[in-house]
């Protein structure tokens, strides 16, 4: 574990981002966390990284309900970019929604590895890290 795990949090709620960062830092020994407050901002971040050929996030925790651009639109835009570098990113929907419709919809995006209800537990986080091959 020389390289830190690079995680991008996309959520409009700053407290959520704060809490989530805290939790991830507590559970994962070597982690770098960046934050975007909606889908649009996240996209811009990714584009900037692409143009600089910088390291991509390993994992994105994506909220669904956000202003400007919500989680679904973000996923659509990302798919449209159709970039092999981007396709290596592991995306998790991280939402407070327990709505069945959202779960069903999430299942239609092959890119989405899982839909996780807030808040996650240490066990879940470690499982995710392992699933992503770290």
């Amino acid at each position: 574990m020389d390289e830190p795990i690079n995680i991008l949090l996309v959520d409009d709620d700053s407290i959520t981002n704060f809490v989530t960062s805290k939790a991830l830092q507590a559970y994962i020994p070597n982690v770098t966390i960046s934050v975007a407050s909606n889908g649009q901002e996240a996209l811009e971040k990714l584009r900037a990284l692409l143009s600089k050929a910088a390291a991509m996030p390993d994992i994105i925790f994506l909220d669904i309900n956000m202003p400007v651009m919500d989680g679904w639109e973000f996923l659509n835009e990302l798919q449209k970019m159709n970039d092999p570098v981007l396709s290596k990113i592991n995306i998790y929907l991280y939402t407070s929604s327990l709505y069945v419709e959202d779960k069903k919809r999430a299942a239609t995006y092959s890119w989405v590895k899982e839909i996780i209800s807030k808040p996650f537990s240490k066990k879940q986080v470690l499982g995710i890290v392992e699933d992503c091959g770290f």
Partner: protein
Amino acid sequence: MAGATSILGSRHNNNMPATLFAIGKLNSGIKYFSLRGIIILPNKAEKHPVMKKQLTLFFLCCSCFNYLHAQSKEVYLQLKWWHQFQFAGYYAADIKGFYKEEGLNVRIIAGDKDHPPVKQVLEGKANFGITGSDLIVNYANGDPVKVIGAIFQHSPYVFISRKEKNIVSPTDLIGKTVMASEDQGWVQLKAMLIKEGINTASIKIDPHTWNNEDLINGKADAMTGYVSVETYQLEKKGIPVNYIQPINYGIDFYGDVLFCTNDLANKSPELVNRFSYASYKGWEYAMGHINEMADYILTLPGVKERGITKEALLYEAEAMKKLILPELVEIGHMNEGRWQHILDIHKSLKIVPENISLKGFVFDPMEKRNADLYNWIIIALIIVSLFMLFAFLYGYNLKNAVKKRTLELTNEINIRRDTEDKLKISEERLELAIAAAGLGIWDWDVQRNEIYFSSELKAMLGYGPAELADTIESFMYLLHPDHNHEINQKLNDHIYNKRDNYDAIVRLKMKDGNWKWVLIMSKALIRDEQGRALRLTGIHLDVDKIKKKEIELSHLTDELMHTNRDLQQFAYITSHNLRAPVANLLSLIMFFDRAEFSENNDSLFEKVDLCVQKLNQTLNDVNEVLTSRVSKANQFEELVFEKEVNSILASISEEVASTRTSVIANYEVPTIQYSRKVMDSILINLVTNAIKYRKKDVDPIIHIHTYLEAENIVLSVKDNGIGINLERHGNKIFGLYQRFNADVDGKGMGLFLIKNQIEALHDSISVSSIPNEGSNFTIRFKKQDLHG
């Protein structure tokens, strides 16, 4: 006058049945008993030579009888107008010898402006006359006239106008110039105007020139005329017309009627009877032989000269059928009630004084008259003496033959009467059934575009029996435009595509302008070789109340669906928006460094933590309820009760062990087709409840029992706990956040949740309980195959 009948002709043998006819034909004017079709005497008699001989003598005697009557005089009939199909019946009676058979020599006088029929008859220039129902005005004015019979059941008078004038209803006549004649149907047309609330002063009335050119060149905007004559003449000239018919506005007068003077009716009623009988017979013939009569009429003086063609006569005949109704009404039939109605309209228009009564106006063929009686006595005497002579000459042979024949006749009459009675009874039954069901009936002759609408059908929509034109157009006018497409398509299918039945529920316009829902059912009765329907018939049923209820219900359902969607949306947003901060709170609490808290703060923080945990649990439960309600995606699978119970017990094994709970199970029904999720939810809730509400000093025992009960598989979970006071709490126990024991920490969610889940699958849960003894929860599942 062609073909006047000679008196001498009455010696012909045929006179025998004719005479009997005349007696049988004595009719009440309302309903009469006809002997036609029964009198077959001469033909059959020929088969019996002896009898023939005897009868010849008898006929001779009857010829005397006829002779007495025929002797009276030649008879003159004054027509209302010049020769046209309007009088076909009288020509037929003449040329077919019906008058002759009655011993009458009839001369028919064409009418014109200088020969008004009533005046002609009153002045003695004719014995009988034809005029319109305005005869009643003459009667009211004191003219000694009697009406004998009505030929036209409906009046042919209409307002006619050129189509481009767009005069389609009485109100369109306001401010227009109209050609009319006081004695040509004016009363009924005026009655229609007044009934429609039109002041006749607002219409300019010019004397009638009876020249269609005046309408064509615009001298008049409209004129009065016959629906059967002038409309055709104009159309034929290429002038499309509109006409307004009083019958469509509730004014229904008789058309042509046959009349004579009081004097003739009183002194020679039998002459009147013979004349009218032969005339009606002539009408029956004429309406059945339109072509032949048209050819004949063309030979009458003045007809060709006026430019009348055969085609025009045929058109007139067709139009007259609707007015005479030969198939429906006995020709000549009159109804005193209708005359009274016509008189009343005249009174209300102040055309006749209020005190006029109908008594004496309508000829009664059965009335006894002294003068008459005297004649009859003489006739009777002659007959009796002749009979005595026969008896003397031929012994009793004749008597027996007559007796036998009379018996046969009586039998025939009885059989016929019996059949008629039976027919009447079955007709009455049908009428009763139709009335009871409130059915309207219609019958559509597609080719001729004639529809019969029953009076019930009209009444259903608020129309009187004489309102609404009998055409498909009046139906289409009533039909709500929303149904136009559907009905056109269905009718098309029905008529052309061999679909024998169709029904539809549509809105029809009532007279008061409101819409009424009506069920229409139709059946095609006759089709031509191409499969085209020629006649359709069917019913209308008033389904207004049912349909409106249905619409109301569907609105209600829509509203409920909407509310339901809103609620789900609301619940979703609420739970989501609440969950996010709660989730954060949970995490924040976790990262709190409580080491530096004072003891007091630490215990307060402990409580904050507890509150957040509860809040989180509640939100999760609410979500669970929503999810179970929304998702019908509950997969059904075969569940083994024992396995499910054991897995539930394993998941709470610590609790079971620590409370020393024992479970006694009896699975009479071992398996069920059901949703695992719901079953587990039921079991975990009921088992944990049973443990939670245990008695403090007694080890909990839970009985789990499955069995069959009628259509259901039953699962019962019974405990020996503290029980519930159901009298106090009743079914609130299944309500949201109901807890019934302050000592126990429950969130009151479980029972509400499982009841919801169970009912979402159309099953049921109930409870019985005795405080301090325990509770028994019973779930009734429909048998598997019923779950679909």
